[in-house]
């Protein structure tokens, strides 16, 4: 199984991963993988706060991932004018 991980807002990984052309992480595993497992395996500099799975905000870390999933991770952030 292969998933794509996008890091934003100053999040970085302390590990070397294969990357896409845009610089996103290609995470491959043959084992079943939950969102929580993935985040642990990424060795991030900060704990992600906003987790988006295929465009949907996901608050449940036990959800199982499947091949081709896209995960976007953000620290706490905000804005407006």
């Amino acid at each position, binding site marked *: 199984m292969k998933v794509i991980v996008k890091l934003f807002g100053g999040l970085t990984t302390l590990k070397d991963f294969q990357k896409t052309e845009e610089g996103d992480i290609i995470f491959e595993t043959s084992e079943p993988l939950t969102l929580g497992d993935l985040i642990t395996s990424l060795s991030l500099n900060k704990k992600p706060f906003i987790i988006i799975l295929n465009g949907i905000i996901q608050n449940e870390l036990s959800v199982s991932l499947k091949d081709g999933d896209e995960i976007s991770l953000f620290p706490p*952030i905000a804005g407006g004018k």
Partner: protein
Amino acid sequence: MKILRINMSTDEPTVKVEDLGEYEGLAGRALTSAIISKEVDPLCHPLSADNKIVFACGLLGGTAAAMSGRLSVGCKSPLTGGIKEANAGGQAGQVMGRLGYAAIVLEGKPKGDDTYKIYINKDGVRVIKDNSIKMLPNYDLIEKIKQEFGEKIACISVGPAGEMKMSAASVAVTDMELRPTRHAGRGGVGAVMGSKGVKVIVLDDAGTTIRQPKDPEAFKDANKRFVAGLQKHPVTGQGLPAYGTNVLTNIINEVGAYPTYNFKEGRFAGARKISGEVEAELEKQRGGNPTHGCHRGCVIRCSGIYHDKDGHYLTKQPEYETVWALGGNCGIDDLDKIAMMDFLCDNYGVDTIEMGATIGVAMEAGLLKFGDADGAINLLHEVGKGTHLGRIIGNGAAFTGKAFGVERVPVVKGQALPAYDPRAVQGVGVTYATSPMGADHTAGYSIALNVLKTGGFVDPLKPEGQVDLSRNLQIATAFIDSTGMCLFIAFALLDQPETNQALLDMINSFYGWSMTDKEVVEYGKKVLKFERDFNARAGFTKQHDRLPRFFYKEPFPPHNVVFMVKDEELDQLFNW
């Protein structure tokens, strides 16, 4: 604190200073909305002598309270035809407070076409006829004003768009560097100031002191706790200082709520190129600054300085809504071009949100292609020059849509929607539809809970819970907009009860009040009631509290959802 009234109708404008009287206890948005609601004929033409424009600092304006420098600008809006409160950062709010004015009200209208400047200091008010400043862009104007009055001033001004009375014209407020970069952008408040013949108000607080609290020790302690709370919260203490508001581009794009190509799609391929992360890095590389306060006493410091390729000042750091409006919404992914458009909007004095949405409509009409940054820049120059085309664009998205026969026009009550699609974030759709201001994200920023998970989480893609969410936020916002506080304090207030309490303690110790959360809610409701009441008398009905129909009919990719909150539910928003 006093109300300063300047009547521009007579050959020699008249100046009156009054006690607050029936407006005692009101400030900021509460004061502008109360004065407009009580004193302005709701059926008047917005550019007539019967309209008034009110500038008001908040409850804590001119005090030592951190974050308290916001300025409210109120009038009957030429864009919406309803009541308007547009809000700006910059120095003017604090300086006004130190000068002892809770509000400055411009009334009447000159008979001729002379241009005036108003100089206010501790000794009084001078209204000076000066036709040499007529039609100057904001930056040129402020340079000229500096030569005359020095650099220890704050200015409130209009650019050529305001003088031409365009419905998208803004009121500019100078920042800490005395640049006209902070704007009360929305609703055409600049056109109303322009209609009064007033080009600039120069505020000089030399020889004044900060306003003194009733209980100085308690005030000092509360301010300390308040600042500590802002610094502790990850949004106000880290996210906003590091990347500014444009940190939102990536997240709103990733959740598929980033309106692109005039609200056709929720993801923009070029989003990363114009994101806050890239913008901040570019500013650092070029000698700009991504962490900067828009007024003295700001501890969040989400503004910034944007330099061009050669390392010269180009504009202030374009905000998220600006980058979206003039960038992603128009299919433009070039930050330097967007920054140039930000400068042009500030210089000519027009609202960046309204201009971006308008150019998107012009692109939809085929006037220029999506992605044509140079074409968009040219359109803004047309606005500044006041050509026939420029006057169409400068009157906003609804006007431009009519001029070019476009059906898909993203406006509510005539005011353009900001940078979050109401189909993918249903809570903000409720705010857009029902706010007395027209489509305005700041009136009830549901993004905080729908996306950013501050203060809880309400699923953005479902209609359930959105009316309650928007109602609570609209009430709380009406109060915060009256304190003079920057709205961004709300992120810390939502998550940290002790920071919320610190704000109340600050207000109570300053005035000798004993306000509780319950009274905060009543205060916010009172403000909304002034505004709704004015709009009702101006002819607004519940049918005006709706989104354009295409949001109910066109599924929005990638989630392919429509706006699902029912009309009957929207009608319950103000039934508290």
